[in-house]
């Protein structure tokens, strides 16, 4: 065991000395390997960011996995009046913390240049977390906002621009025009999506229905609320069945109850970036292969110059196995160093703000940390290439005749 440990450490030391002494040659031969490792690692790393961007964009619209939607209407098109109680009971029974009503409505807002109908979504406080809504300014709704006399509104950046971008610390207000004129306080601003051109805002569902009662007439554009729940993926199917059964049972056969998953994960099959990853990965693999061939070539040429050295080492007790291992380790140590350089370069590329912005297109709020598997993949590739590239020179090295080598 002691001999194995000292042999191993000794071979690594020899390899490192060789790399150190011939650093210029080694560096030149390893540029290809470092570039290829950087490319492979970057592809995997950027893939993770791009995937996160897709996921977050999907979660903003359809909610996180697993998001369930519950839609209820009576056969005559009206909204069941007992739905509030049924909803509350269901949440308590299944201990669901993240749930929200979603009321789509249009609320007329008085701007300085006139009254404008603004698309308004009435929600409960958990909605912000469920849909990954991040604010440019202010904070998302809290339970304390329910008790406000002047309702809180969160407006999009277009809305805020039309207000001339007031400082939220001054508690800017807007006038909501309707049957009753209501003054609301702007407590937050969220970024408008790239395709949005009109003002929009969120209100708490209770506040919205208080100033604009829920319309039960099916002919009216904005109808009754729908209900959303964010539940663990592994129990989502059972909950769909259970909610369907419970709500249908409570409302009877006169009601139409639809419970379904609405998040992206319910529809997404496989990795949408797989083909891109495979293409760039294949190119990186080719670069890696070319780098390895260059490495083998230079190692073989160098070996001819090192025959005497190998003979000297053999005369001092280096076994054939040790020479084989040391020559191979030189290649491995060198490529691992190149791999580390490549991985560091990849980390710097992937985490640079410029690249993050380009890949995420403003869709990512929770930037994933640099994927460990990408770094491991890069280092494994470098090590394997080093071992394979070192194999041929190592085989040549052990065939050197000691006597001839010393006199070489």
């Amino acid at each position, binding site marked *: 065991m002691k001999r194995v440990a*000292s042999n191993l450490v000794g071979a690594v030391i020899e390899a490192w000395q060789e790399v150190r002494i011939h650093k210029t040659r080694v560096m030149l031969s390893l540029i290809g390997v470092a570039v290829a490792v950087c490319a492979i690692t970057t592809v995997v790393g950027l893939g993770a960011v791009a995937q996160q961007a897709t996921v977050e964009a999907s979660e903003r619209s359809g909610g996180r996995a697993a998001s369930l939607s519950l839609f209820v209407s009576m056969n005559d098109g009206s909204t069941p009046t007992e739905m509030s109680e049924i909803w509350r009971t269901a949440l308590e029974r299944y201990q669901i913390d993240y749930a929200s009503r979603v009321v789509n409505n249009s609320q007329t807002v008085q701007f300085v240049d006139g009254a404008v109908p603004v698309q308004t979504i009435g929600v409960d406080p958990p909605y912000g977390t469920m849909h990954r809504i991040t604010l440019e300014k202010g904070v998302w709704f809290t339970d304390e906002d329910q008790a406000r006399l002047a309702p809180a509104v969160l407006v999009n950046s277009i809305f805020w621009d039309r207000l001339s971008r007031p400082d939220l610390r001054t508690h800017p207000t807007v006038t909501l025009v309707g049957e009753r004129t209501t003054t609301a306080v702007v407590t937050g601003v969220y970024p408008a999506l790239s395709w949005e051109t009109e003002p929009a805002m969120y209100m708490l569902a209770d506040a919205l229905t208080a100033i604009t009662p829920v319309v039960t007439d099916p002919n009216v554009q904005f109808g009754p609320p729908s209900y959303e729940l964010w539940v663990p993926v592994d129990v989502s199917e059972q909950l769909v069945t259970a909610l369907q059964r419970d709500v249908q049972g409570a409302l009877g056969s006169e009601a139409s109850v639809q419970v379904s998953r609405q998040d992206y994960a319910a529809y997404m099959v496989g990795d949408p970036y797989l083909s891109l990853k495979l293409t760039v990965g294949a190119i990186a693999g080719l670069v890696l292969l070319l780098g390895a061939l260059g490495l083998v070539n230079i190692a073989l040429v160098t070996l001819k110059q090192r025959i005497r050295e190998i003979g000297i080492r053999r005369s001092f007790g280096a076994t054939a196995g040790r020479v084989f291992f040391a020559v191979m380790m030189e290649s491995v140590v060198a490529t691992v160093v190149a791999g580390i350089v490549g991985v560091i370069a990849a980390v710097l590329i992937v985490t640079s703000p410029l690249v993050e912005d380009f890949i995420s297109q403003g869709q990512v709020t929770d930037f994933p940390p640099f994927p460990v598997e990408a770094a491991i993949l890069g280092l494994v590739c470098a090590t394997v290439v080093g071992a394979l590239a070192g194999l041929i020179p190592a085989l040549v090295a052990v065939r050197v005749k000691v006597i001839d080598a010393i006199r070489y």
Partner: protein
Amino acid sequence: MTLLHLEGVTRTVQLIDAPPLTILSGVDLDVDVGDRVSIVGRSGSGKTTLLNLLGLLDNPTSGTMLFEDRPVQSLSSGARDRMRGREIGFIFQQFNLLQGRTALENVMTPLLYADGRQFWQRARIATEMLERVGLSDRLGALPDRLSGGEQQRVAIARALVRGPRLILADEPTGALDLETGETVMDLIDQVATESGAALVTITHDPAIAARATRHLRLDHGVLQVRGTVPA
């Protein structure tokens, strides 16, 4: 105590279009612990082949060769390599220092193939060895910055750093001027005596050969005793 025993050793080389060439023929030799043996001979007489056999770098074609009573021909290649590293130190005519490595790294090289204390404390052991050969101020010097005498002293330190029981010197002063050669031989004698190792020197130089206690001559592959000087 006999360290090395050769009896009826021959070494022949197979040639492609010619009958086998006999380089050594019927060599009988005993090297005892602490022995001082010199072997002289003309070029092509088989001196280096004999040195390679003694250094376990080559195997005899026939005959018996024992190292500390162990038949070396039956040892595996790895075991022979390990025995060579442990028991034998080489001093070459051209020094054969590893280029690009400092004097200290050169002396540490044989210790890389040791285990236990010798391996883990190789820097300290190599430093002490270089101090013994008077190069304590040249530890970090590269071979091309050392004089010929200094290079040979580094080579001596490297040959002796693992405490071998047999030192094989192949024309150790061949690349040095007369005065430096004398100094180097004094040093080899001194450290060999201190460590109790046997010294086998192959040389053309009668003055160097004369330092040994047993004088042998190789002539056309046959080893002959020329004389013995009482120790």
